């Protein structure tokens, strides 16, 4: 006996809705990818958005320095504490410097930096573009013959390409400093051993991998956040201010989840 009004049985309905959901997700992902390609290609179109790119660099990069420094410092310190506790069980406290540095450079630096920038700048990007969309400012650009993607998205992509790796490097450096302060200053590990192990365990490829990751995360975050704001008017279940608030929330959630998934994929590839 059919369970649903349309005569379909439970498995048929489930597979139908599952199929629709998968198609929706694929469509969304395709849309985001094409949006990124459009924004990236527009970087090289005249007139170049130099002033706007510098402004975005200041907003995404310079204004995030303090936040990244604080988060990096405490991440390094707690990593050092936890690392010492674990390593002490095997009598290997000496490699703490290397463990802290490797964890930060290969993994925590790019991931936490991306998540912190998402929270601070990504949400603002999404809200700003979303408000511009609902107040017809994006349409106004279009009617003036100005490509809204080139004007709004390309400078943010440029800023992300420059600022994410730099901020990640800052995070790593201050994190290692935090680890050093805890390890050497509090836990009394020999300073020379701490630095020597770091020098011995960390190779250039680790830093290069971390750089690739930060670059990828930057492009991912900025694309998702701009996309959510840019298409705020097409989303169901929220218009106007409510739509912008939903877009901002979605942008942050998708960016964070996206960063973690991308981290796994990139780690598998770069390992």
């Amino acid at each position, binding site marked *: 006996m059919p369970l649903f009004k349309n005569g379909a049985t439970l498995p048929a309905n489930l597979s139908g809705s599952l199929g629709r959901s998968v198609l929706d997700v694929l469509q969304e992902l395709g849309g985001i990818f094409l949006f990124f390609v459009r924004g990236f290609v527009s970087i090289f179109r005249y*007139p170049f958005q130099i002033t706007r790119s510098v402004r975005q660099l200041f907003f995404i990069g310079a204004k995030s320095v303090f936040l990244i420094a604080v988060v990096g410092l405490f991440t390094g310190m707690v990593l050092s504490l936890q690392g010492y506790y674990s390593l002490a069980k095997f009598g290997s406290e000496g490699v703490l410097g290397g463990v802290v540095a490797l964890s930060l450079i290969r993994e925590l630096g790019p991931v936490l930096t991306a998540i912190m920038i998402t929270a601070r700048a990504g949400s603002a990007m999404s809200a700003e573009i979303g408000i*511009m969309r609902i*107040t*017809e*400012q994006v*349409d*106004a*650009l*279009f*009617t*003036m*013959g*100005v490509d809204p993607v080139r*004007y709004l998205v390309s400078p943010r992509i440029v800023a992300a390409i420059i600022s994410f790796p730099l901020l990640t490097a800052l995070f790593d450096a201050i994190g290692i400093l935090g680890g050093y302060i805890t390890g050497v200053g509090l836990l009394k590990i020999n300073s020379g051993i701490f630095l020597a192990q770091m020098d011995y365990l960390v190779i250039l490829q680790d830093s290069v991998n971390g750089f690739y990751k930060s670059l990828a995360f930057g492009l991912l975050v900025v694309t998702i956040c701009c996309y959510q704001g840019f298409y705020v008017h097409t989303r169901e279940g929220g218009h106007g201010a409510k739509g912008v608030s939903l877009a901002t929330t979605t942008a942050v959630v998708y960016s964070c989840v996206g960063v973690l998934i991308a981290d796994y994929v990139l780690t598998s590839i770069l390992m």
Partner: protein
Amino acid sequence: MRTPLIEFRKVSKRFGDKVVLDRVDLSIYAGEVTTLIGRSGEGKSVTLKLIIGLIRPDSGDILYRGKSISLMNRAERERFRREVSFMFQSNALFDSLTVRENIALPLREGSKAKESTIRERVDHKMHVMDLVGTEDKYPSQISGGMQKRVALARAIVTDPDTVLFDEPTTGLDPVRKNSVLGMITSNQRDYGFTAVLVSHDVPDVFYISNRIVVLEQGRVIFQGAPQDLEQRDHPVLQEYVSSQEILRNEIYGLQSAKWLERTFSKLREDPEKRDAFLVMISLPEYHIIKEQMGHLMVDMMLGSMAKIFYRVSKSGDACKVARYREDRIVCLCEPDAWNEEPDEVLRGVALEFDSMDFCSAGMRERQAVFSVRGGWDRIGSELSLSQLVQEIERKEMLLGSVSCRSGG
């Protein structure tokens, strides 16, 4: 035959279930001011957005200089954007840019002009739009009228060939409204500029427009010269032509001619309502009253008569009074609207007219008496409204008079 600059061919657009434009054919000619008028929600702004490409038609084609906009290649589309500018109803100013930056944006982003040239042109437009002193303010720091003028300055700063104005005068004071309309006219005269306006400023826009397009229920019901619009005997078109009179009618509780036409048709189709009747009251000396005492006095007289009809009917909904032509009102009544026969009611109403004095103190010395005529008939099922009115006109009688008495 002239080739239109912009042409709609069977263009349809719907949003959900709502059909906004239904197979619309429309022509806009170069060097003319074309004004789109119609009620709110009739698709006027949608028409402008379809032209500029912000939305796409569901079916049909839009041509610019004879070329389909949807088939334009990149270079042609860029040229089209340079030639056509748009002013939004909501202004759509960039709220994080100053007034000067807002006006300069189309030049900075869309041209290779030098900064000094941009500055000069922006200053000129700001001067023309009376915006001097607001250069460094943000849109949120200036009034709604000023925001409108900034939007207008931004739309014309590139000296486009064609400008689409979506309600350019809404929210402006009368002096500035006239200056905006004057600016559109002078640009059109001096530079051969083509303007497409959406406006509710009827009849003001008739004076500046070469062409009027009336949209009603998703269709273009008129396109042509304003003079032709005034001569068309179409109830909806007449509503626009005499929109100020309609406002006055509403103040005096009178329905429109269009409403009368609609209600009459409905009653005629209902077998139970064919015994309903139509009573007509006219002022034969209408033009003399208007000339001597002004149109407001005529409106007041007809309005007072309407009130009497409302008062003597059994319930407020049993009778409705409409202004049929400028000199007469028509009362459409349910079959059992009154306890007495219509002839007796008309005589009673006429007696009340006799006892009224419409003169103000300044008019006492004029001492005038004006006749009131009237008649009635059942609506039946055969005659149209105009035929029935002619029938009543043939047998209408002198009911009494309205007067302006000395020392009254």
